[in-house]
């Protein structure tokens, strides 16, 4: 396909997606999934920083019981905007739009996503939605909580609910289009020999995520649209004083937002499957079970949304049904957890930075998931709901789960994406800091929650001690998160060249150059090996790599 081009550029400065054009236009009008991924990476990081700054403000305010640093009204806006930015603009696009976009097509041996123009469109929609939201935040922001519960959001809040809602509405379509693109790509763009059961598990996870995106996201779109119209027209379909029903909003909101939490974890699970298996240099244990459990989570995830509404006034019967299904949906996650552990058995495990994140994920997601069971047990949730126990639970799964997996994935594929190697030393330091800081921040919140400290609150004095722990932990966590920013940037400038396959792994993405050429492969690959094949069949030149010490420092 690109033979002519490669022949021409066979000299050292090989043409890759990065040096293939330097103009702004060559970036903004690109259809190359890799460039789009890089643009996502930058935007997503900016949103993470903004969300992180809000988080810092929350933790500083919560250092003392009184609302002294932030006025109540400001505090309400701060946690709302923290939630909105982190969820809709950072966590949901994080792994799919950055790592998925970059790696998925390469992993299956495609030249690009099936619909590159749609991919670019999705990036633009994300930008427009993001810009719109940021504009609304600058105008004055919102104070409804990220859940936008009515009738507060429709009738009582005098902040920019409508504008932020529309920002989320727009942004939703970016997510939908990304999901659509992945599904099509996985169906039609696999290289010869890349059968469904040879797909890396990351691809399966992305596929499951995409299903949720397509089936769920439109519902949040229509929900916030109704919310916005409602605010404008005051007809009151969510306003009980004139016949509406505020709980209908909760149903519609959680119909998306519960499955959305699986949008926020499945890609992370995919990354972890890659990391655990590859850094144990061993075939993953129970491939089919991990693959199908992703799909099972995506499907069953749609049946449990009512567990966010146990005390909302929904019927007792519905509460019991949703509690039951919540328990069922935990099982596929359990299957994954056990399979990952079993994968490490008799492996040949190396502790590079990505693997540290992988192991960190196993511990943190375990705690996060198990506390999800606490919240699913309906009699217990009555006490726990809307307390810091919930806050701790979801930070464990979202930060301890997805963010950690995202960081692991970034470190893992960084040499592929940039062709440069970062400092292993600082990578490990930062992984440790994140792990320690994270636990210090959020573990105390479980206790606070059980003690009854409500969320979105300035608390009574007896809760202060644990809150101080939490704030201290957040500082450590903050440092741990700023470090990668520094050393990853530094690696771009002065990092040593990574080589095409620094970890000597069999995946297709490691069989093209780093950074990959515009159409990913110089020769269309033909897959003859199973996923995670480390034996002879993989055709890797391990001896050669061992001889070449510079490939990697252990």
């Amino acid at each position, binding site marked *: 396909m690109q033979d002519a081009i490669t022949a021409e550029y066979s000299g050292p400065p090989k043409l890759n997606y990065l040096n293939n054009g330097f103009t702004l236009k060559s970036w903004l009008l690109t259809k190359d999934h890799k460039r789009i991924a890089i643009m996502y990476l930058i935007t997503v990081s900016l949103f993470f920083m903004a969300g992180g700054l809000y988080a810092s403000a929350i933790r500083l305010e919560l250092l003392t019981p009184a609302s002294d640093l932030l006025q109540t009204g400001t505090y309400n806006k701060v946690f709302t905007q923290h939630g909105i930015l982190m969820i809709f603009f950072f966590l949901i696009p994080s792994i799919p739009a950055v790592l998925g976009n970059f790696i998925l097509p390469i992993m299956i041996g495609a030249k690009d996503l099936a619909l590159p123009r749609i991919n670019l469109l999705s990036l633009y929609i994300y930008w427009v939605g993001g810009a719109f939201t940021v504009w609304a935040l600058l105008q004055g922001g919102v104070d409804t909580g990220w859940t936008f519960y009515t009738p507060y959001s429709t009738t009582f809040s005098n902040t920019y609910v409508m504008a932020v809602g529309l920002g989320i509405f727009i942004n939703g379509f970016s997510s939908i289009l990304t999901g659509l693109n992945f599904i099509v790509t996985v169906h039609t*763009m696999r290289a010869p020999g890349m059968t469904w059961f040879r797909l890396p598990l990351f691809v399966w996870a992305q596929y499951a995520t995409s299903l949720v995106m397509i089936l769920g996201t439109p*519902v949040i779109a*229509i929900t916030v649209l109704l919310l916005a119209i409602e605010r404008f027209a005051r007809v009151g379909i969510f306003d009980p004083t004139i016949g509406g029903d505020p709980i209908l909003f909760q149903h519609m909101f959680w119909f998306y937002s519960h499955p959305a939490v699986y949008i926020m974890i499945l890609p992370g699970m995919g990354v972890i499957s890659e990391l655990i298996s590859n850094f144990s240099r061993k075939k993953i244990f129970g491939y089919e079970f991990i693959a199908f459990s992703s799909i099972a989570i995506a499907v069953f995830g749609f049946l449990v949304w009512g567990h966010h509404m146990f005390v909302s006034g929904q019927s007792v019967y519905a509460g019991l049904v949703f509690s039951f299904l919540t328990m069922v949906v935990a099982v596929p996650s359990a299957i994954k957890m056990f399979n990952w552990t079993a994968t490490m058995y008799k492996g040949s495990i190396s502790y590079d930075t990505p693997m540290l994140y992988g192991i960190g994920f196993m511990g943190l997601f375990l705690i996060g998931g198990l506390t999800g069971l606490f919240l699913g047990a309906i009699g217990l949730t009555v006490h726990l709901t809307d307390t810091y126990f919930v806050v701790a639970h979801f930070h464990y799964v979202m930060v301890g789960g997805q963010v950690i997996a995202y960081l692991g994935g970034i470190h893992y594929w960084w040499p592929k994406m940039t062709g440069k190697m970062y400092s292993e030393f600082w990578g490990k330091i930062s992984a440790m800091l994140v792990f320690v800081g994270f636990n210090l921040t959020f573990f105390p919140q479980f206790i606070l929650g059980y003690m009854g400290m409500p969320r979105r609150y300035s608390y009574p004095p007896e809760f202060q001690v644990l809150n101080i722990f939490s704030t201290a932990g957040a500082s450590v966590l903050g440092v741990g998160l700023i470090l990668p920013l520094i050393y990853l940037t530094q690696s771009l400038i002065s990092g040593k060249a990574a080589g095409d396959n620094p970890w000597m792994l069999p995946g297709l993405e490691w069989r093209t150059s780093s950074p990959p050429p515009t*159409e990913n492969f110089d020769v269309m690959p033909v897959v003859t090996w199973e996923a995670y094949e480390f034996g002879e069949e993989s055709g890797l030149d391990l001896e050669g790599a061992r001889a070449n010490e510079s490939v990697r420092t252990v």
Partner: protein
Amino acid sequence: MSSHSETGKFHYHEPGLQHQFEDMGQQEESVSIGMWMFLVQEIMFFGGLFTAYLVFRSKYPMAFAAGSNHLDAFWGGLNTLVLIVSSLTMALTVYYAQKSNRNMQVIMILLTMAFGATFLGVKTIEYRDKFNHGLVPVQGWNKRIKAETNAEHETKPCWEVDHNAPAIEHPNPRGEFQWTDCSLVKKAQDEGYLTNAEKIGYFSNGEIDANKFRDKVRIFYYLYFVMTGLHALHMIVGLALMTWLLIVAWRGSFSEDYYMPVEMSGLYWHFVDIVWIFLFPLLYLLGRHFMHGG
């Protein structure tokens, strides 16, 4: 299809083949799966609205029946037929594209567009009518001076107002939603089929409360406007799509070998039609039987 690209090692790029694909088969399959995923997405999008409809209709069937009776089933039915015809012409467009018949394609696209536009025209008539009768559920969006309301509502209790009574012109300075007729509530009360939500929702101190009933009817109109409005928006997008198709078809670009865009636009058009197939009975017809038999 596995055969030809393996043998055809030379890289012949068929017209319209994008760089990331190997051959047209792959491209067509991608596009068609993509389109279907888009439609799935659309179904869920409208699905949210249908959920809201379902919930409120099950809560306030009489308000929905009253609101629905007041919609003009003639226009609604006509529009249904118009859309069905346009669906036929759309299907034929695809058929003629497959047969590489440029002229018939162009004609069929033009017909489809004409019917689509007719549909929107009728919708405008209906919307205007609602505006005149003060039935737009947004304050200020109704006719302010001389809105037409029922002649009898000032003299009679709200359940005796005959909604077929002649309309008089009636000032509505703040452009508010107007609804006076609660005869259905009275009837349902007498015959004993009010739901629990209705027994609370329509009454004050044991009496039928015209204002409270009006609020529920307004919810119906709200859903009516949002549902038909979004549907109309989809029609407008569809018309834009048709315009583009028309231009390309005019140039004779579609043939037996390459008609994917026609096929895909057709899927979209039929989808919009299907939404209307449900909207018509749900909005215009359900509850109509209360006016006739028992």
